[in-house]
């Protein structure tokens, strides 16, 4: 009798738990794109690193479109076949995507990796910078559905005088000097040349991708926007060039709230770089001082993609990046005193991520509860032949932010095993179907891309801010947005650089929980102008133009 009584709560709990839907849920939608990186038995390094993707509105019709970068023939670094074409898909707003690559002129030419979205000429149309192996491209958006390759005109086609052609993985548009023009920060990986690359044996007669230690580091680059369609390489004079690394991810944020955008770069098996913007065109590398050079145990881990945003709603941007199995997905909380503290253990991320290999982390509020969650594309850097030792192909995961820097891991629960595990790479986030829930596009090596439509239950409210700079850069990149709803504040800033080699260039999204309106939206523009909107209704995209003063 006593025993039967003691079982009752358990049975009740089981019955209840079966009826509780997962708080974040995605459903798969196919899209006609396959990432082709020219995988060869020799396993040349770029083959496993491709896959940047962008979500942005290329034609200003209010619908978020998708741009995929793609590989090329690894021997020639040329797109020798149409299967290597970069692709632009136009969204009709009803869940249908039409391939408009040919008309747009965005098929590309080389072995492309990453993409950065930004309106560099402030004409109201978002342009594309495509980072690639030994060749980058700047595509100007002409506003009529076409793009023009303006790389040479912009002065972005010059090989490095010391390192030769660089292998760029990604980039970020960011106005480093608050002059109203977005500048370009390019992340370069490592020195690679197919003619001199030594193969790495994984077994008798078989090869796998080599450890980064077999390659030399290369410097990142900073190009100042001259405002006339050209750029000036200030990598050396700004101090950026003095810190070569093996860059994989870039996040931009004003971490010390001094009004200047700073830059964080993850490096592969090398300490990370945090470039603190000192103003006057100078950066100081302060990763060690700020406590983000390495994880707390001084491990040189495989830093992959990164996102740099406020996770705990205290107004200070935090850092989330990912690495391979046993290296964890480290989380660094901004202390508000110029430094960071690693909270990987206490957040629960240690336990969740120890067996995972991640590529692209993006911080966004997928359940609209007012806390940014973390979506991570997963997959190992090694080839499929490595699978006997670790799972090379993995499903994606979303880590739900429970508040207080605590997370909950959701994979199958979130519907993310609806597709087979893959070697996922880039990812981009945006509301593709105007339902107020953020969707995700992910790529995978030698596999179809995946659209994950957010089908989370619940009726939480939301608001999106689409900024238009006047004195500041047109995209408002760097603008800090504070939203107060239900008496609670949350923060984000405009930065399209997120994840691995990817861009998420939709409006800035805030989940509002049960609040049907926002008390205050405060925008601190890069120009220094502070703008306030009061009593804003929820569940809509609010277009905000920077005032004259």
């Amino acid at each position, binding site marked *: 009798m006593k025993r039967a009584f003691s079982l009752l709560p358990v049975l009740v709990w089981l019955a209840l738990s079966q009826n509780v839907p997962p708080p974040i849920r995605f459903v798969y939608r196919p899209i006609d794109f396959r990432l082709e990186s020219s995988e060869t038995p020799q396993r040349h390094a770029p083959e496993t690193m491709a896959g940047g993707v962008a979500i942005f509105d290329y034609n200003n019709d209010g619908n978020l479109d998708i741009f995929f970068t793609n590989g090329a023939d690894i021997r020639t670094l040329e797109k020798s076949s149409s299967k290597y074409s970069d692709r632009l898909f136009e969204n009709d707003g009803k869940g249908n995507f039409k391939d408009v690559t040919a008309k747009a002129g965005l098929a590309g030419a080389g072995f492309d990796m990453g993409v950065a979205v930004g309106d560099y000429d402030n004409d109201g149309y978002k342009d594309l910078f495509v980072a690639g192996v030994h060749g980058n491209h700047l595509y100007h958006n002409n506003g009529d559905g076409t793009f023009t390759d303006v790389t040479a005109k912009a002065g972005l086609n010059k090989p490095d005088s010391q390192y030769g052609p660089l292998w760029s993985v990604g980039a970020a548009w960011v106005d480093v000097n608050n002059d109203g023009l977005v500048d370009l920060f390019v992340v370069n990986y490592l020195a690679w040349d197919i003619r001199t690359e030594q193969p790495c044996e994984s077994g008798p007669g078989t090869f796998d991708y080599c450890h980064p*230690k077999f390659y030399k580091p290369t410097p990142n680059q900073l190009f100042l926007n001259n405002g006339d369609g050209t750029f000036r390489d200030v990598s050396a004079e700004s101090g950026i060039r003095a810190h070569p690394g093996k860059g994989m991810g870039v996040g931009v944020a004003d971490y010390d709230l001094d009004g200047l955008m700073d830059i964080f770069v993850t490096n592969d098996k090398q300490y990370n770089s945090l470039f603190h913007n000192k103003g006057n065109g100078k950066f100081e590398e302060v990763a*060690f001082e700020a406590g983000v*050079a390495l994880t707390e145990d*001084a491990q*040189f881990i495989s830093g992959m993609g990164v996102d740099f945003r406020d996770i705990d709603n205290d107004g200070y941007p935090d850092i989330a990046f990912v690495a391979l199995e046993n290296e964890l997905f480290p989380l660094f909380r901004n202390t508000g005193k110029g430094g960071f503290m690693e909270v990987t253990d206490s957040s629960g991320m240690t336990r969740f991520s120890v067996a995972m290999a991640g590529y692209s982390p993006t911080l966004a509020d997928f359940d609209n509860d007012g806390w940014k969650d973390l979506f991570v594309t997963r997959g190992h850097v090694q080839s499929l032949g490595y699978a006997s030792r670790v799972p090379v192909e993995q499903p994606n995961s979303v880590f739900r932010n429970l508040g207080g820097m605590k997370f909950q891991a959701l994979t199958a629960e979130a519907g993310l095993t609806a597709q087979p595990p893959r070697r996922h790479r880039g990812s981009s986030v945006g509301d593709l179907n105007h339902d107020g829930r953020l969707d995700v596009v992910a790529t995978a090596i030698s596999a179809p891309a995946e659209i994950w439509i957010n089908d989370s239950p619940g009726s939480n409210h939301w608001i999106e801010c689409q900024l238009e700079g006047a004195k500041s850069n047109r995209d408002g990149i760097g603008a800090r947005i504070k939203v107060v709803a239900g008496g609670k504040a949350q923060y984000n800033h405009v930065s399209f650089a997120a994840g691995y080699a990817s861009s998420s260039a939709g409006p800035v999204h805030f989940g509002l929980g049960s609040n049907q309106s926002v008390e205050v939206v405060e925008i601190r523009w890069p120009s220094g102008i502070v703008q306030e909107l009061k009593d804003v209704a929820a569940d809509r995209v609010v277009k905000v133009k920077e005032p004259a003063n």
Partner: protein
Amino acid sequence: MKSALLLLVLAARLWPATNPRAAEEANAALALAHEGKYEQAIPHYRAALKLDPTLPGLHLNFGLAYFKLNRFADAALLFEHATKEDPTSFQARVLLGMSYYGIRRFADAAVDLKRASEQQPDNTELRFKLAQCYLWSGQYEAAKSEFKFLLTKDPDSAPVHMLLGEVLDAAKQEEQATAEFEAAVKASAHEPEAHFGLGYMYWKQKRYEDAQHQFEAELADQPQHTQALTYLADAEIHSGNEKGSEEHLRQALELDPNIRLAHLDLGILLAARNDSDQAAAQFREAIRIDPKNPDAHYRLGRLLLALGREQEANVEFAKVKELAKREEPSPLIKAPGPDGDPPR
């Protein structure tokens, strides 16, 4: 190690008098050896060898005297001769292999023990030693195969499960390694090191709570197990149990003041409660023990920076930049100590 492997029988016969003086010395040596007086037998063997190095069995028996005295290097030289004289001698082959084993030439030992095992494939003690030699010479696939064979003979052998676990861990097959240690614990809950080995595997996988249970179980049997104390403390830090951690670290350091991880972790705890001087001292001690490990440099650098000692901090950070993180040596794989016997 001594004689557990095979019954070492001294040459039963006296040598014939083809070279009377040599035979006389050899027989005198043999008589002394039979009485266990190996030190006294050695000069007679040496004399006999000088007079007639062709006396059959002389190298083998002379080598055996050295072997009994744990003088494995001397023994190995004589057994090398003995195996040349009679390449089919099982006894000479095993003794040569075990002499190499005694002087930690595990790769060489494996060659001779392998040849011996071909003559006696069901000799499990021999196969166990062979497997150990494979493990300690980094021949993991061969070691795996030997240990798996041994498990077919005795599926509940905790030591074999543990050693197979070590092999698998060394081969970076952590899941399988963990399973072997779990099997070892199941086979013999009080097998020395079994709980520690399983705890270490959990610790590596950052399963800190599971690891703590195993380290505690090891400490229940071996309260002075310094590694179990240290790793338990480290797992406690990761689990947020700082009070328990400090107690275990101090216990470990009292038993052995040269545990790097214990100093590092103690420094972390002290730094967290702003006992900066003591924390710095612990980090410096960790650096003294292993100056090439970057983590204590990094911790010390961050501590010094927080204290406003920027210049000193930058010295530490510069060291970190120079040091690529070395892979921590596994505490599981332990080659035999100077006495020839492995710790388990």
